[in-house]
């Protein structure tokens, strides 16, 4: 007996009725919460305990070019605010790309996914510039407690953003090859969930690190 050809659906539903890839990613996100909680609490615990500068919001004595000097506050809030806004908008872009993928609109998928990847690249570039700038202002990884906790926390987050950019970049290549039909939109949904998590973590890190004085 012959059956009509059924569409190939890339969903692996479990007894819960939810795709198992989605459950796996949410479990990963849950464990990542604990990672970031540890790093954020370390930053908070050691905040204001540095013995030498540079410091985030106030002038201090610091070692620069081999001699002790008066150093200015190190943070550049406008630049980081721009990076934060770009990351927030990238979350909007990726849900629009997902909407396009689910509705079978390849043009919409490619446009919004490209914008998401560009935003991710901008954020990573902003962080590389910031780290480089701070290093030249005398803040190394082991200069003081602020440097150690700041670079660890934001670097860990930046690594996650980089992984997200690579992940979304591979999906973008697949989208341009026409390999993300609506039945496989779940693959983009999983990557988008990860991307939103990276965004959510930054929503906590930005005020905690940059705005709390």
């Amino acid at each position, binding site marked *: 007996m012959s059956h009509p050809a059924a569409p190939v659906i890339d969903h692996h539903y479990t007894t819960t009725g939810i795709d198992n890839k989605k459950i796996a990613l949410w479990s990963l996100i849950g464990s990542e919460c604990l990672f970031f909680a540890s790093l954020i609490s370390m930053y908070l615990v050691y905040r204001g305990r540095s013995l030498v500068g540079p410091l985030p919001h106030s002038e201090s004595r610091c070692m620069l070019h081999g001699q002790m000097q008066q150093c200015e506050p190190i943070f550049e809030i406008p630049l980081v605010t721009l990076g934060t806004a770009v990351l927030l908008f990238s979350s909007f872009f990726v849900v629009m790309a997902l909407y396009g993928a689910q509705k079978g609109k390849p043009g919409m998928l490619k446009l919004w996914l490209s914008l998401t990847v560009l935003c991710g690249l901008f954020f990573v570039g902003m962080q590389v510039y910031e780290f480089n700038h701070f290093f030249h202002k005398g803040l190394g990884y082991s200069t003081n407690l602020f440097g150690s906790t700041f670079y660890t926390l934001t670097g860990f987050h930046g690594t996650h953003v980089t992984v997200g950019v690579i992940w979304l970049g591979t999906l973008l290549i697949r989208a341009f090859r026409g390999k993300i039909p609506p039945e496989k939109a779940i693959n983009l949904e999983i990557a988008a969930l990860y991307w939103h998590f990276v965004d959510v973590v930054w929503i906590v890190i930005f005020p905690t690190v940059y705005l709390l*004085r």
Partner: protein
Amino acid sequence: MDTHSSAHAEHSHPTPGLYLKIAVVLFVLTALEVLTFEGGRGGLGPALQPVFEPIVVLILVVFSGAKFILVAMFYMHLKQDGALLSNLFIWPLVIAAGVIAALIVLLSYWRVVGGMPAPELGS
């Protein structure tokens, strides 16, 4: 919830219009956070500094909490997806909050109570 209704609920996601509204709210909240920060350090004028300074932390916590909830509920689709996924996120968050509170108490509070305040230089 049976398999079919759960799978259906998993796919009834918000519309682009709602996504855009949430993006605008997120942007506005971020702008307000930065304005509050500037007000607290006197960037909006010395007259406003005493107004902002005592409430900076509270406002930052409230605004970042609101942004966190908006992204999790609508962009991460926790509002539409099953309770199982919400539990996979919320309970680790509760543990994470406990970890932060415990580490701060252990490493900050008891150090001071024990008579060993750490030397401080500034912020």
